[in-house]
């Protein structure tokens, strides 16, 4: 089966808050943009029952509801959405090709917003109870079906404690397994105080999961005291894991640089080690992973992708694709001398053969276009014909004689 090939300015992989924001910015810049999400739009934010620290929602809001609003706003700007998994990302002659089960999307710029996923405990029989067999990562998804039941939460961070309290509205008892000594949790202080005051929450300190037991569905979680080695079986109907996350960056392995934990390295412009590929949100190497920071990343990534596509188009159409002889003047507009050269070049150009095209490439804000032409210094003049660099002039002191001579040589 041949895959259908489609071309886009920007392809965004991942439909969480970072990806949606990046796509919104790209779409609003009127770039042809597609966002590819493997399942439900909203990413990890849809696993949160209440988001209280995202400005603009003073009463707090359910994660799924908030993501629906993000989705609606993004689609207003003409972003196309494809709900399928990306199977491969490759580079073919400077083109970025994103493959899915049935399609290939060719992108000028790619934004990776693949996020992260919940970490597993690694305890015995864990695999057996994934996929709705008793181990869950999402209290909002599975709280209602645990009404009147006994559940366990593993972890003591914000997610564990806050979701544990959410579960206590449904379950009769919530057992919380904490690796630390009695009274010590990783969650914020407000959540800790509320949790300790909640009679339905029972803490089991200094423990990790040793094994998951059950026939078909999970029936028992065996905890192990890390100090004494004592094994403690607990009969539960569900077990919720909130012990941190691992990045979803397998697709980008070998494509862009990552840190030792697999998070993608970027600079503050969200640029990865490979030109044209940006990374935003939780999959990026950064300090704080929240909806609020994902949105900031997404805005920058979308904006930088727009600049990148503009550059690609300009260089392709106006420099490499231009007819005749292209005379590209690379300069820094804040330098007085370089501005003076520009007016002298413009005067000379006015009297030249019309087949000579002058292009002004100011490197003050960014020298990325000049870099594409492989410039060596500023100021200098590069000569291009049919997309090939044919010569350059670096000493501009006597340009009234040197420039016309070079032009007649190359024209």
């Amino acid at each position, binding site marked *: 089966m041949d895959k259908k090939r489609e071309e886009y300015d920007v392809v965004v992989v991942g439909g969480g808050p970072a990806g949606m924001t990046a796509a919104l910015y790209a779409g609003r810049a009127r770039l042809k943009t597609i966002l590819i999400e*493997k*399942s*439900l739009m909203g990413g990890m934010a*849809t696993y949160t029952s209440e988001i209280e620290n995202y400005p603009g929602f003073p009463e707090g809001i359910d994660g*799924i509801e908030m993501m629906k609003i993000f989705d609606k706003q993004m689609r207003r700007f003409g972003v196309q*959405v494809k*709900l*399928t*998994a990306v199977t491969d990302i490759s580079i073919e002659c400077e083109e970025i090709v994103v493959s*899915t*089960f*049935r399609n290939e999307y060719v992108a000028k710029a790619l934004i990776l917003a693949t996020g992260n996923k919940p970490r597993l405990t690694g305890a015995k029989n864990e695999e057996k109870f994934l*996929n*709705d067999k008793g181990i869950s990562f*999402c209290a909002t*998804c*599975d709280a*209602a*079906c645990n009404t009147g039941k006994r559940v366990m939460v593993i972890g003591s961070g914000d997610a564990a404690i806050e979701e544990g309290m959410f579960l206590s509205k449904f379950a009769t008892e919530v057992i919380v397994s904490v690796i630390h000594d009695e009274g010590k949790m990783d969650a914020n202080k407000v959540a800790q105080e509320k949790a300790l005051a909640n009679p339905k929450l029972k803490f089991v300190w200094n423990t990790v999961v040793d094994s998951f037991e059950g026939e078909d569905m999970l029936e028992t979680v065996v905890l192990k005291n890390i100090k004494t080695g004592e094994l403690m079986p607990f009969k539960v109907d569900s077990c919720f894991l909130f012990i941190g996350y691992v990045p979803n960056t397998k697709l980008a392995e070998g494509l862009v640089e990552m840190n030792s934990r697999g998070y993608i390295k970027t600079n503050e412009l969200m640029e990865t080690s490979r030109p044209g590929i940006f990374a935003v949100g939780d999959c990026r190497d950064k300090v704080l992973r929240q909806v609020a920071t994902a949105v900031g990343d997404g805005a920058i990534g979308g904006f930088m992708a727009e600049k990148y596509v503009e550059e690609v188009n300009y260089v392709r159409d106006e420099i490499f694709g231009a007819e005749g002889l292209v005379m590209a003047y690379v300069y820094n507009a804040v330098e007085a001398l370089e501005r003076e050269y520009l007016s002298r070049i413009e005067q000379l150009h006015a009297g030249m053969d019309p087949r000579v095209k002058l292009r002004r490439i100011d490197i003050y804000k960014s020298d990325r276009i000049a870099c594409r032409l492989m410039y060596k210094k500023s100021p200098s003049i590069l000569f291009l014909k049919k997309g090939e660099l044919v010569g350059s002039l670096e000493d501009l002191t006597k340009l009234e004689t040197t420039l016309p001579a070079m032009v007649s040589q190359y024209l």
Partner: protein
Amino acid sequence: MAERTLDCLGEACPVPLVKTQKALEEMAVGDVLIVNIDHSCAMKNIPDWARSVGHGVEIEEVGEGEWDIIIQKMK
């Protein structure tokens, strides 16, 4: 290549996943199963599970909060 539709509208987790797993067991490699769902939790567990066992998955958004999960049985 047969195509079969499974109506799971109005059904909460884990019912749609269990029905999907049963339906696929009865189907041949290359067959396509279309699962209609309207519970967002099924949007997480059905595609995740189907991909984890190696099937091809695409999703169509039919309306707001309503999806067709298209699964091609690969093995």
